[in-house]
């Protein structure tokens, strides 16, 4: 785990840096979630609407739509593929789950990519991901915090 300006960046997964999204491959499935930067930028979530299991999404399309205050925005899919399991129950139980725990309990959706080698944007890992994300954090001038508490 790297931490930069308060932003936690686990090293056990890949990142769509520009999309503020993390991706963890589990066999032929990909678990997606918002990064600490994403939840910080968004602020406290008030609502989320998931694409349902079985729905097809385009690479760069939306797997979920989140609302914070009066601001609505998409969570983009890095891949073309099919939604397998949205994390509906966890968000129903605690709408702030991604604000509290974006990398574990607050994952967004599990999907089956049509071709995981063809992401919408490059997925970076390891040192390359950390360097790129640190540059983005500086560019955005963001310092992360968990606003849920």
């Amino acid at each position, binding site marked *: 785990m790297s931490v930069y300006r308060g932003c936690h960046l686990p090293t056990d997964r890949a990142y769509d840096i520009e999309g503020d999204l993390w991706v963890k491959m589990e066999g032929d499935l990909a678990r997606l979630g918002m990064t600490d930067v994403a939840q910080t*930028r968004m602020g406290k979530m*008030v609502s989320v609407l998931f694409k349902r299991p079985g729905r097809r999404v385009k690479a760069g399309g939306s797997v979920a739509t989140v609302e914070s*205050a009066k*601001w*609505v925005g*998409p969570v983009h899919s890095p891949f073309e593929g099919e939604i397998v399991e949205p994390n509906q129950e966890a968000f129903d139980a605690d709408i702030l789950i991604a604000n509290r725990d974006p990398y574990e309990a607050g994952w967004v959706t599990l999907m089956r990519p049509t071709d995981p080698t063809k992401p919408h944007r490059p997925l970076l890992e390891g040192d390359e991901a950390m360097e790129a994300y640190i540059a983005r954090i500086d560019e955005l001038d963001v310092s992360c915090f968990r606003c849920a508490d």
Partner: protein
Amino acid sequence: MGGATLRVIDFGRVSPLRSQTLWHAIAHGVSAGAPPTLSFMQPESPYVSIGFHRRLDEVDDEECRRRGLRVFRRMVGGGPVYIDNGQLFFQITVPASAATAMRARALRSLLEPAAEAFRATGIAALLEDQGDIAVGDRKISGHGAGQIEQAVTVVANLITRFDHTAAARIIAAPDVATTDELEGLMRRYVSATPVSPEAFRAAAVERYAAALGLDAKAGALTDVETAALASLDAEFVADEWLMGAGRPAPPVWRVKVKAGVHMAHAAADGLSARLSLAHGRIIGASFAGPSLNGAGERLGHAVCGDTEEGARRRLAAAGFDQLAELVGAMERGR
């Protein structure tokens, strides 16, 4: 910013449907490379708009039918709102990459020029910390925001005339007394501003151009936007879009009047509790139910000025545990 031009489009009076779909189409256009855009429009007849995530049954469909109002779902946030030709709508749409990283800050930076435009027309408007444009403690402009494709849009309005009655009655409420109280809160905290729309429009163009460092230039829809408009016109009248996702009903009825001012209602086992709150304090309370043995009015007076937490404790200490639990549900549902 994405280009040297702030495209300005004044659509004038448009149908209720187009007063929604036009600015959504612009977001598609800006995503596809059209310049940042400031757009204006006025609905030619009244209707109701509901936020992207909200349940359709938050709107009183009987009242809407009676008044001949259609309901359209928008792709930005917020609850059901009554819209008529006493409101001039404006939208600022910029590429998502050009918006400030933090959403709350982006919202402020894209609303501040609107507050300046109000001031330029002689209205002592301020952008409050929580994002409402207000004069004193009265909200004078509603707003919503969102990312549509790769564009960020902030929608707001100049309210030259506000129909508080219609605005309160189109919201589905547990009972008439709640609706009446909601209307009262709206009259207290939401106000029209007697500004000429032309003067406001001119000031807004000037202030947004200055804030974004762009040259304002009148423009028109691009081919991408015209195509998107046709598609959105069809999508927005489809039942599936209007119905939304069918989210579960929240345990507590709650309506925000402005930032920091809201009403809540909860009921269980024959007891009901209704609270009006301003800036964390109860400014009106009504409790009813046979088990209160006529003490509802006295209890309502007793908790005035309390926080929800304080009221819950006060009620529990007085032995009204069920009522305290209802207030606790309101507190948790905030």
